[in-house]
């Protein structure tokens, strides 16, 4: 323990001072601290300061940054020296000393028991051995000892200064401790909250092993759904995470994330999950509307760990290693090599490739087509061509991809923290290190976190001062290749083991002869590309937070809070001269004069793209809080405050041609339009320059109050008004406050309530409005000027982006929440039922408008949506005793429906293909289909048009009469939840989580000949093989015949018909956590306070699924499902 104290008192300030003097060494020092002095590693990852300056291309900025960082380090260092001085609080000598030892009935020490002197404001916590030492105690005083899980006990102070052993009796009825939920503005005892909250504690958050904090919410948070397949099925504006369904169309669809009382504007991946103490999800208006215009999609409040006053230093350490299986590429639908070759032969015979073969732009041909062409022109015999093609038919690119593109996931995570506190001071210092090797070869993610906080009490403990800092550095390498190769039979390695070149963009025979050897090599070798990719993103983020709180009167305090958050992301992509991109770029801009002189407009050397994103957010809040009990029956708590917030961003990018370590080549002509090789089209050399500054500002006023009478009846109300620079003055003035009211009734506390089986029963009801905003709109006429796109005279111009819309206002989401909380005797069953209805009003929607106005469609507050649902949480203790078995069932329903939308899909085709094209009465993201009427006798698909089978595909698809369209169901599952079972036996604990999703639909990819012809082969081979081939086949198959030329509408009629609709319902074995707690002597061993080892298996697979095609409904759009991962880890407390 002394060593640790030494570390805090001496080593840390020294370290920070060192950093303060040489701030540009921070990354190096951190690496040293984390990795040891592995110079090799440091040199390969960290550019020296010269290089850094070059990257930024702005020495001044760097200097400024250095100065800023230096200042920060100094502040941090000071913050850390102060706390360490008075740290010996409990050993200070003074008169009236009394000591004792708190024990339980079996004489085991009780740490952290509160020892209070009645009538005096003196209290202390017992230490790990149960010992305590109190000052200023006089004879005749009474000590009140209390601890969670034990009955309170009083002991009188006699003559002696040693009270000896004080025994507390276990209290089995008191096991439910008072849960405090955080709204980001205040701490509310759950029993008095009327709103809807989900609280996740450290234990639950640590159940899962993950790098990202949000992943840990999956499957354990009632009402929170993770939407997969958001890319293609949902069309635009998808959200990966939603609280109680979707209630907006074009505005921000993501929940607000609050970290330490302020909206988090940084990158969520910068947060170290081991630093998180708890997460509260605010689901209804009473809980969330205090966040006003940002709260429409729910709020996730993340609270980081802090020290506790009056505790000895605690050290916590954790380490874990996650190993993931290689991705399974064979699950995704893909045409086999032999099928694809069959298609290519078919097309070749039909003359499909003729125009490509003779085209003056020389587009690429597949290896098989090249062979067929050589056969046709008599260069090879039919025997040879059959053999060559036969070789290809036996290949499967996926085996090469699996071997060279993918690998096992290996994630390492370490964290170390020290926390504790003295009488009027507490501190927390944490550090974390993550090193992830992702499943794509050459992709990695490294993260270093350091954070600390201090809380001091001054002025007779009336003034509280908290300071905190967070420093994160992420280093992401994105060098993997995930692009699937078009042809299913390509090999990545030649027979001799060298890296193979594959057909890419242009026909090789042409480009090889084009430059008479004077052009750079134009071949594409995927494995060389993979080896040379150099794409690095580094993100440095720091956050400083300070709070001053003054207790003016008892139960009445005023506070000021300020937070500064800066994230600096640098994205650097280096295309060295060996990369295809660079060679191609240089070749394209090589000019050949009539005299055969070659001029390179783009110089030899690498191409370097730099992108810099700086984001700064500042928050300032002033708040009064009141919390007072009047008499025995009345309890009033209220807050009133005001805050200002600015989130500003600055992004800039540039590109260097002819780049080498020494510098960049001279100027390149960005203004000229040149004829490019090998296609002879014209183009300009990209300057890669861009610059954008953004600034969103808000000023808000808020208040809430809750009144509880007799611990049974609670009334609550809140109101908030937001103003922003996005909307301009008129809207701000007109803005009506977002508000909520709520009430709760604890029936079980009524004198008449006699039902002993359910000792706790409470009803809650709330009503109110949350808000949402679409930043892209403005009430005034606005123009956008893009410096990159130029008019025909080569100068930048403006586009009218917004016609004036003086009626523009916040989106409002009205919510009603009805809740029932209950608890059976002995906590055998406890749970919550909640019903909610969300009404999105004034949602931004598109409506048509008279085009004579100059605009054809108009975005304004014209749409409404409704979401209705249910959240059920049931905790049961099934077996209690030596063997404990408890279960948690989460069950949620969230059905959304667009209730008003002024622009119906213009055609059936628009409704089918997705994007945002809602139909009133259905969910925003819906699956529609055409009614299938079988194949006709020539193998053509038929769908119903006005009740009759039809093959007039274009008439059906371009029809605006939506009665021929069949509504199938929602894309996102409206019913979801999980069942978690925990088994405890002695020191062993096993926790198994099963998740389920019901009620959603998806499309079997079907078979699209038009796409296959152009090389897209993501279809199931079985579909292709079972296609209609001969008359009569229509009786046994539904797959249309292959015709030439392909007809896109015919393909669509089949692919969007209802026979290809599958149900998404499935049950998944999400994860298993097995842990073992070492039995330590009560009160801790000499070394450890606690010690746990665990293993965790994630993504175990689907247990049951309606669709029998082997498709995972959660991973339809990705090349593979999340691979199974195995983690092993240790958590130790010292």
């Amino acid at each position, binding site marked *: 323990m002394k060593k640790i104290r030494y570390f805090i008192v001496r080593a840390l300030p020294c370290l920070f001072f060192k950093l303060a003097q040489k701030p540009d060494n921070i990354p190096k020092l951190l690496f040293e601290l984390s990795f040891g002095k592995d110079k090799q590693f440091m040199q390969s990852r960290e550019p020296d300061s010269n290089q850094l300056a070059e990257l930024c291309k702005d020495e001044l900025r760097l200097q400024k940054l250095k100065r800023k960082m230096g200042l920060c380090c100094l502040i941090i260092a000071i913050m850390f020296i102060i706390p360490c001085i008075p740290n010996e609080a409990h050993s200070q000598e003074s008169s009236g000393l009394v000591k004792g030892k708190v024990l339980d009935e079996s004489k085991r020490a009780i740490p952290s028991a509160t020892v209070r002197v009645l009538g005096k404001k003196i209290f202390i916590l017992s230490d790990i051995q149960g010992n305590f030492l109190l000052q200023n105690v006089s004879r005749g005083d009474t000590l009140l000892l209390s601890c969670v899980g034990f009955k309170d006990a009083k002991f009188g102070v006699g003559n002696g200064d040693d009270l000896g052993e004080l025994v507390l009796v276990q209290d089995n009825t008191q096991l439910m401790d008072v849960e405090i939920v955080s709204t980001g503005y205040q701490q509310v005892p759950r029993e008095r909250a009327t709103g809807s909250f989900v609280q996740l504690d450290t234990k639950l958050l640590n159940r899962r092993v993950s790098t990202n904090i949000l992943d840990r919410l999956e499957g354990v948070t009632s009402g929170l759904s993770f939407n997969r397949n958001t890319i293609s099925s949902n069309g635009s504006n998808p959200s990966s995470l939603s609280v109680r369904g979707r209630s907006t169309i074009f505005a921000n669809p993501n929940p607000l994330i609050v970290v330490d009382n302020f909206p988090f504007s940084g990158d969520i991946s910068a947060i170290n999950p081991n630093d998180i103490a708890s997460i509260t999800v605010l689901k209804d208006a009473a809980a969330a509307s205090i966040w006003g215009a940002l709260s429409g999609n729910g709020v996730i409040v993340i609270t980081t760990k802090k020290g506790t006053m009056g505790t000895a230093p605690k050290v916590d350490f954790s380490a874990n290693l996650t190993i993931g299986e290689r991705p399974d590429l064979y699950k995704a639908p893909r045409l086999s090599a032999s099928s694809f070759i069959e298609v290519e032969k078919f097309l070749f015979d039909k003359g499909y490739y003729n125009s490509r073969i003779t*085209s*003056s*732009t020389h587009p690429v041909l597949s290896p098989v087509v090249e062979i067929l062409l050589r056969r046709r022109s008599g260069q090879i015999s039919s025997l040879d061509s059959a053999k060559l093609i036969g070789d290809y038919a036996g290949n499967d690119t996926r085996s090469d991809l699996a071997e060279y593109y993918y690998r096992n996931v290996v994630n390492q995570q370490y964290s170390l923290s020290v926390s504790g506190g003295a009488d009027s001071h507490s501190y927390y210092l944490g550090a974390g290190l993550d090193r992830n090797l992702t499943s794509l070869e050459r992709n990695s993610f490294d993260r270093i976190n350091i954070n600390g906080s201090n809380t001091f009490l001054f002025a007779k403990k009336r003034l509280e001062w908290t300071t905190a800092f967070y420093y994160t550095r992420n280093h992401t390498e994105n060098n993997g290749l995930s692009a699937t190769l078009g042809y299913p039979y390509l090999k990545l390695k030649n027979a001799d083991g060298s890296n193979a070149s594959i057909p890419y963009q242009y026909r090789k025979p042409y480009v090889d002869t084009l430059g008479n050897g004077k052009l750079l090599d134009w071949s594409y070798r995927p494995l060389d590309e993979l080896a040379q990719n150099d794409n690095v993103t580094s993100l440095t983020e720091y956050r400083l937070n300070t709070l001053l709180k003054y207790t*003016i009167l008892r139960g009445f305090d*005023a506070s000021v809070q300020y937070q500064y958050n800066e994230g600096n992301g640098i994205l650097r992509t280096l295309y060295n001269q060996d990369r295809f991109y660079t060679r191609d770029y240089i070749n394209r801009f090589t000019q050949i004069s009539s005299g055969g002189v070659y001029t390179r407009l783009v110089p030899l050397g690498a191409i370097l793209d730099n992108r810099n994103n700086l984001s700064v957010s500042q928050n300032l809040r*002033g708040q009064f809080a009141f919390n007072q009990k009047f008499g025995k029956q009345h309890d009033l708590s209220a807050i009133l405050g*005001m805050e*200002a917030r*600015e989130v500003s961003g600055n992004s800039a990018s540039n590109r260097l041609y002819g780049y080498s370590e020494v510098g960049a080549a001279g100027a390149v002509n960005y203004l000229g339009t040149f004829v490019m090789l090998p296609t002879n089209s014209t183009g300009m050399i990209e300057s890669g320059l861009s*610059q*954008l*500054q*953004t*600034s*969103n*500002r808000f*000023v808000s006023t808020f208040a809430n109050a809750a009144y509880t009478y007799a611990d049974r009846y609670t009334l609550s109300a809140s109101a908030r008004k937001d*103003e*922003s*620079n*996005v909307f301009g*003055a008129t809207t*701000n003035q007109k803005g009506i406050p977002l508000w909520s009211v709520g009430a709760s009734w604890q029936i079980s506390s009524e004198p008449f309530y006699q039902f002993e089986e359910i000792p706790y029963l409470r009803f809650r009801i709330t009503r109110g409005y949350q808000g949402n905003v679409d*930043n892209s709109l*403005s009430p*005034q*006429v*606005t*123009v*956008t*000027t*893009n*410096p990159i*796109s130029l*008019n*025909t*005279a080569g*100068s*930048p*111009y*403006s*586009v*009218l*982006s917004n*016609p*004036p819309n003086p009626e523009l206002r916040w989106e409002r989401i009205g919510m009603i929440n009805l809740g029932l909380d209950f608890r059976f005797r002995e906590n055998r069953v406890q749970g919550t039922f909640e019903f909610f209805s969300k009404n999105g009003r004034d949602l931004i929607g598109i409506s048509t*408008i*008279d*085009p*004579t*106005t*100059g*605009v*054809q469609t*108009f975005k304004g507050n014209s749409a409404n949506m409704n979401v209705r649902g249910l959240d059920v949480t049931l905790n049961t203790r099934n077996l209690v005793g030596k063997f404990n078995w408890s279960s948690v069932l989460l069950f949620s329903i969230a059905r959304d429906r667009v209730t008003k939308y002024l622009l119906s899909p*213009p*055609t059936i085709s628009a409704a089918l293909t997705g994007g945002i094209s809602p139909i009133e009465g259905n969910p925003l993201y819906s699956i529609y289909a055409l009614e299938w009427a079988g194949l006709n006798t020539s193998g053509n698909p038929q769908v119903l048009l006005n009740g009759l089978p039809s093959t007039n595909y274009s008439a059906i698809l371009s029809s*605006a009469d939506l009665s021929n369209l069949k509504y199938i169901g929602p894309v996102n599952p409206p019913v979801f939840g999980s069942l978690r079972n925990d088994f405890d036996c002695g020191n062993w604990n096993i926790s198994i989580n099963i998740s389920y999703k019901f009620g959603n639909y998806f499309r079997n990819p079907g078979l699209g000949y038009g796409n296959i012809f152009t090389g897209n082969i993501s279809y199931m081979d079985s579909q292709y093989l079972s296609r209609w081939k001969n008359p009569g086949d229509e009786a046994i198959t539904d797959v249309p015949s292959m015709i030439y030329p392909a007809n896109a509408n015919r393909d669509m009629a089949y692919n969007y018909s209802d026979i290809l609709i599958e149900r998404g319902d499935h049950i998944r074995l999400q994860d298993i956590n097995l842990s073992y707690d070492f039995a330590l002597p009560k009160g801790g061993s000499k070394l450890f306070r606690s010690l746990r080892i665990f293993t965790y298996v994630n993504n175990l697979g689907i247990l049951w699924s309606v669709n029998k095609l082997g498709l995972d409904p959660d991973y339809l759009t990705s090349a593979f499902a999340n691979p199974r991962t195995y983690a092993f880890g240790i958590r130790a407390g010292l």
Partner: protein
Amino acid sequence: MKKKILEYSKILLLCVLFMGCKKEFLEKKPASNISVPSTIEELRLLLINTVDIRRSPALGELSGDDYYMEKAEWSGQFLPYFSNSYVWSSDIYQGAASVLDWNTPYTQVLYANVVLDRLKKVERNGGNAEAYDELKGTALFMRAWSFFDLAQVFAVPYDAQTAATDLGIPLRETADIDAPTVRASIKDTYDRILADIGEAGRLIRIEKSPINGYMPSKASVYGFLSRVYLTMREYPRASLYADSALGIKATLINYNTLSTSATVPLTTDHAESIYQSTLVTANPLVYVVTSQGYSIVIRCFMQAIRRMIFVKPFTSR
């Protein structure tokens, strides 16, 4: 108690200060590339847009005799609009959702009206008078251009006898999208066009367009006036203004020097150009009628049509 009052009043003072700064705090614009155009330069950037505006209806050209289609190509047209307009069908659009020939000229009218509306809030003084007039003249010229384009395609030809009762086109003279759309008479339509060009002619001082011909000059004003009078069958005036235009710029290109095999024989900034407006389709230079048939290259309007230059068989994109 006194102390407490002092403390409260301090906090109150802070709040008041906070409120005082609020208005300024919220006036910052949300993104550097978005602005509410209010200066002459910001408004000018709107009018030099050659992508979204400076477009004319294609219907006249599609139904004209400058090119021809074979029956097979005609029947294989992707959009009914192309085949219908070629044979002067009574229903050209067949319920198409968007009619570019109507919509895009009115977009240009909106751009011009935004500039004219917002210019009223800019003070014209000695320092900016020239730029102010130039911009106002350009906006009026472009609005008149679109009104004239629309009148050619969507209204009956001008007849002095019936012009007061014949229906013309809606004349939108404000950017307010809530203003009602009312169809004016042919007489009002042409009066408006002539008045706008006339005022543009007084405001635009530049004789010849210096770059690229996309900003109107005195030469384009006269040329435009001549064309309007020609359609109104006021031939003496048409002749007079044509003469004025040619008096400023009468450059001729020798077509023998042009490459008839080039994909684009004439670029938009050729020597004869005095103002440019392209057809409403996606590609401003090449009007692709069919992937197998023919494309016509349309350029500045005051050109003699020569098939070798303007009508080219479609080979490759």
